[in-house]
């Protein structure tokens, strides 16, 4: 779950990291009144989740409230990578004498957090790490210990050595303090990624977070209910996604003609590969490792109501669950409804024989081989209609 810039900044502020004065506007008139309150030059920052707002020319500067309003008028209603601009963060323009990069991420192979720090702020860290790797300090953190005082000081010294003006006031100590606050944010909010880029250095040598990004681990959302809201999608699809999530389902639309209901992420991927190999195209898939009789009935409804499906493949390799229960779910649905497409069932695993008998009684012959079942699906979508 990626947070909007304004949410990330609010969190930074709460942790003792300073941010520019400003507020959110939902209309050009609000932009104007905020500009009046802030006095002086301002920055307009559309709140989207996709990156590259600057490159797309969406970050605007204005010297007067009139200019700000006009700029706001030209930004509201535009879209950026599919996201509608309906909220703009209006901030004071801060005078700087330098910019740093500060990021923290999870190093997956090493299974620990890593701090990324550079005296070269404002640019993309991916580019920097390729072009000037010497300008990035990568510092792994022992998560049991946390970021220690002396580690934070070492990191601050790295910056101070390369950009002495970074800490005019208190030497590297102010940056050290900021690093400790930043690490607290990373931990407290279960971040996969936290970034302040640029981290501005003001005229007096103090630091200010000019932009911020936080990505919260989806599995830890329960610890941060206050942050849960629709993000760059409709309220309706957000609710649907949350409902599937609560059931432990993954549902993805793909635009082809074969529906796939299967048990487990790995096997779903293998099925997608095989369908592709045989020249077919998946319409959508629903993957769930833990499906019972009621679950399969509910899943059926999703496929029934989605357009474009010309055949549904049900693939079950029952490990945690049982074939007979799932067959009962299929039977329940077919007794109540007539789906508008043919169904191919591949079913093996726990209580396979019992499940097979249930399906055969309602006229479905389950297939035991994975490749065979896919051949049959392909034949059905290609066949005469």
């Amino acid at each position, binding site marked *: 779950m990626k947070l909007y810039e304004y949410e990330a900044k609010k969190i930074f502020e709460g942790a003792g990291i300073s941010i520019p004065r400003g507020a959110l506007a939902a209309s050009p008139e609000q932009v104007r009144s905020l500009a009046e309150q802030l006095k002086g030059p301002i920055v307009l920052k559309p709140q989207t989740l996709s990156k590259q707002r600057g490159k797309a020319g969406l970050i605007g500067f204005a010297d007067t409230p009139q200019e700000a309003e006009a700029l706001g008028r030209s930004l509201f209603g535009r879209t950026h990578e599919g996201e509608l601009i309906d909220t703009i963060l209006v901030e004071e323009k801060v005078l700087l004498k330098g910019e740093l990069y500060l990021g923290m991420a*999870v190093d*997956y*192979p090493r*299974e*620990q*957090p890593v701090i990324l720090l550079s005296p070269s702020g404002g640019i993309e860290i991916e580019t920097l790490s390729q072009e000037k790797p010497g300008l990035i300090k990568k510092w792994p953190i*022992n*998560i*049991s210990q946390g970021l220690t005082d002396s580690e934070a000081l070492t990191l601050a010294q790295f910056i101070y050595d390369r950009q002495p003006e970074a800490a005019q006031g208190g030497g590297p100590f102010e940056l050290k303090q900021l690093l400790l606050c930043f690490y607290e944010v990373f*931990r407290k909010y*279960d971040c*996969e990624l936290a970034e302040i880029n640029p981290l501005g250095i003001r005229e007096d040598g103090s630091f200010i977070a000019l932009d911020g990004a936080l990505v919260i*681990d*989806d*599995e*830890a959302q*329960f*610890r941060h209910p206050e942050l849960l809201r629709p993000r760059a999608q409709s309220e309706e699809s957000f609710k649907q996604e949350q409902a599937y999530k609560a059931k*432990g389902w*993954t549902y*993805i639309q*793909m635009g082809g003609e074969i529906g796939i209901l*299967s*048990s*487990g*992420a*790995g*096997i*779903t*991927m*293998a099925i*997608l*590969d*095989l*369908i*592709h*190999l045989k020249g077919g195209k998946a319409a959508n898939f629903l*993957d769930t*490792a833990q499906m019972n009789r009621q679950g399969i009935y509910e899943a059926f409804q999703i496929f029934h109501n989605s357009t474009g499906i010309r055949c549904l493949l049900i693939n079950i*390799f*029952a*490990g*945690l669950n049982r074939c007979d229960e799932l067959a009962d779910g299929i039977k329940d649905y077919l007794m109540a409804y007539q789906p508008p497409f043919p169904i191919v069932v591949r079913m*093996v*695993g*726990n209580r396979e024989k019992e499940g097979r008998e249930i399906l055969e009684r309602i006229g479905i012959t389950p297939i035991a081989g*994975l*490749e065979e079942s896919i051949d049959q699906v392909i034949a059905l979508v290609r066949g005469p209609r």
Partner: protein
Amino acid sequence: MSILAYGDTNVLIQGITGGQARQHTKDMLEYGTRIVAGVRPGSGGDQVYGVPVFNSIEDACHEHRIDASVLFIPAKAVKESALEAMNNGIRLLVIVTEHVPLHDAMGLLEEARKRGVTIIGPNTPGLISPPERTKLGFVPTLYFRPGFVGVASRSGTLTYELVSRLTAAGLGQSTVIGVGGDRIVGLRFSSVLKLFEEDPNTKAMLLVGEIGGTMEEEAAELIARGEIRKPVFVYIAGSTAPEGQRIGHAGAIIAGAGSSVHSKVAVLRQAGVQVGTTIAGVIEMMKENLR
């Protein structure tokens, strides 16, 4: 022989009184696993299929030597429960739970490294050693046969699919491990390969990988360095998975986390590994080379 779990491994089940835990305790016992105790605070003195239940791991450890623990514990409580097991000296943990928060997993694995504890998972179907008739987790035993192929996989269902075909092809297994589908898991492919390399009864290995992450590349590096001499076969799923979407495994994120199937296949082939691009293909390869 096998790796990590043997016929005389004494097993504890954490959260043994839950519905799934009960069912799988029964299945594990029927297969032959030596489950000596279960833990569930407040249920001390009860029994689950004849297995005594204790209020704490400490109590269980007073009565029994415990070598390994299987955790059937809700995601939110996994960290605490796993720490309790480590604090009581248990050296092998199998965490079947899905949806464990990333920071909890990082914390656990750091502790495990410090203490030399092996963690399998989170989000794993567990491991099974057919020659020793023991399993820790919930893989369906029906398809497993004793033999000399060691298997490591990131996915439960794909494991069943491939192992059922290995068995049908007459290739039994020494140990089969689901390393877990999460982005962060304890025992990684490279460590499993080393263990199989040392196991005299494992003659060949099968890795079942998927898109995302870097475990396959680490394995390739190890093999390229000559540290693995036994033949390794690989199948990787997800070459046509939709970009930028999560399929289900947190580990199978395409956007930004790790590399594509094609680059994985390329580095593995460069390291001299035989890579099958379909399930049937890799099994065929193994049949030709191993019999």
